[in-house]
């Protein structure tokens, strides 16, 4: 089980344990992590699961794909260097300890 930490805009940290292959979005929804809306259920069609990946993990998580990149341009909170749509980040063992900040607005 891989540990993922979500950091809320107010600084609260939530640690959860992920199953291999589920997305960082699915993990959040399953654990009722506030602020991840996921309107489209993971189809990369709504940009309401926006997170900022901690700098230390940016390389191992990687850059957004083309469609995801386009969707991030339309995200409610302006995108940052390490912005990703959490539905597009699949949990893997090498993401152990991943920290992501939940975007303050998804609308």
């Amino acid at each position: 089980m891989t540990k993922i930490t979500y950091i809320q805009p107010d600084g609260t940290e939530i640690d959860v344990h992920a199953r291999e292959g589920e997305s960082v979005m699915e993990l959040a929804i399953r654990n009722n992590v506030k602020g991840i809306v996921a309107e489209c259920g993971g189809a990369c069609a709504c940009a309401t699961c926006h997170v900022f990946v901690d700098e230390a993990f940016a390389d191992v998580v990687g850059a957004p794909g083309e469609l995801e990149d386009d969707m991030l341009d339309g995200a409610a909170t302006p995108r940052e260097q390490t912005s990703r749509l959490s539905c597009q980040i699949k949990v893997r063992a090498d993401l152990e300890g991943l920290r992501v900040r939940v975007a303050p607005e998804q609308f």
Partner: protein
Amino acid sequence: MPEVPVADWVDVGQLTINPYPVYSRLLVESPVAYVPQLDRYLVTSFEGCRQIELDQTTFSSFEEERSSTMIRALGRSMLRHDDPRHQELRAAIAPSLRPKAISESWNDVFHRLADTYISRLKAAGPGADFFTVFAAPYAADALTAILGFDGVSAETMMDWSHTLIRGISNVTRDDEVWVQTDRVRSEIDMVLDKAIQRVQRTPDNSVVSSLVHAHGLSDEDVRNNVRLAISGGMNEPSHVMTSMIWCLTEFPNARAKIESGEATWSQVFEETARFHSPVGMYPRKVTRETELLGVHIPKDATVGVVVAAANRDPSHFNNPDTFVLGREEKTHLAFGNGPHVCAGKWVARAMIRDVVMPRLASEFNALKALIPEETRFTGWVFRGTDNLPVTWNQAN
């Protein structure tokens, strides 16, 4: 086994006039209930509607062709497929409706149309009908541009859209409605043929171009999904624009907040979509015996996902029947949820929230509904008003 709630008191006539009192009662008494007059299970709670969208295997969009008025009217589009085929078709249309296409192509169109229709509204003068003079033709022309059609008047696009919707709603299987649907399909095909040829030579950001250049779509797929876009991409925006003007007249507190800058157009847009959801209900077919919020639903039942009701669910929204800007609860279901969430969502927001409303606010002084108390909203599956006389202060 607990009894299935049966809401035999629900009357379709009443729903069409004003569904909200019906929704209030269902939300309290039986948020999942079998409604005999409709022969379907209506799901009105926010939680129920969301759960349905999380399980497209049980709650399928597939529909058999022979029993589907939508398929008879439009052909089988992405809206009547489940994943993976749905996702393939959705991915095919997506490039034309995304933020990048909007900033590259559609934003300019929205402003150009605002120039045109603001002039027309000014020329028509105070007392003009906002829906007929501005909202309906604006939305029609915007759709024409986004589709990639040339030389189609607003009147023609409105005729096409309304006729296809009549076909989709043709539950009594009236033959005359099919005659008109087929007429419109031929007319669309003639224009679409030319558009297809054009985009094959020169790709662009249009819906036709995205569909034509996508992998794995047949000619029939292209046409079915163009028809879907025609039926779905015009009435809702025109209804929301009109409703926003009405809401800001009817609710002076909200008006004061937007005028002072305390509230944003985004808040007005989302709250209007929640309060007067332009799409009220859409169906799903139950593929296996299941249970939803403790209610047993048999295989082959039809479920109505009543998002307009979910948007007034007191378990999810504080003071749900009050128009409130800047709500805590930001999520609403006016654009649906899950894989079939509205593909036109970005376009609708860019058009209305980012262009139309700010432009109207800057070019009209105190634009408002003339007689808001006389405005008639109708419908429940689709709901809106087709008539809104407006007034404004003219400079001397």
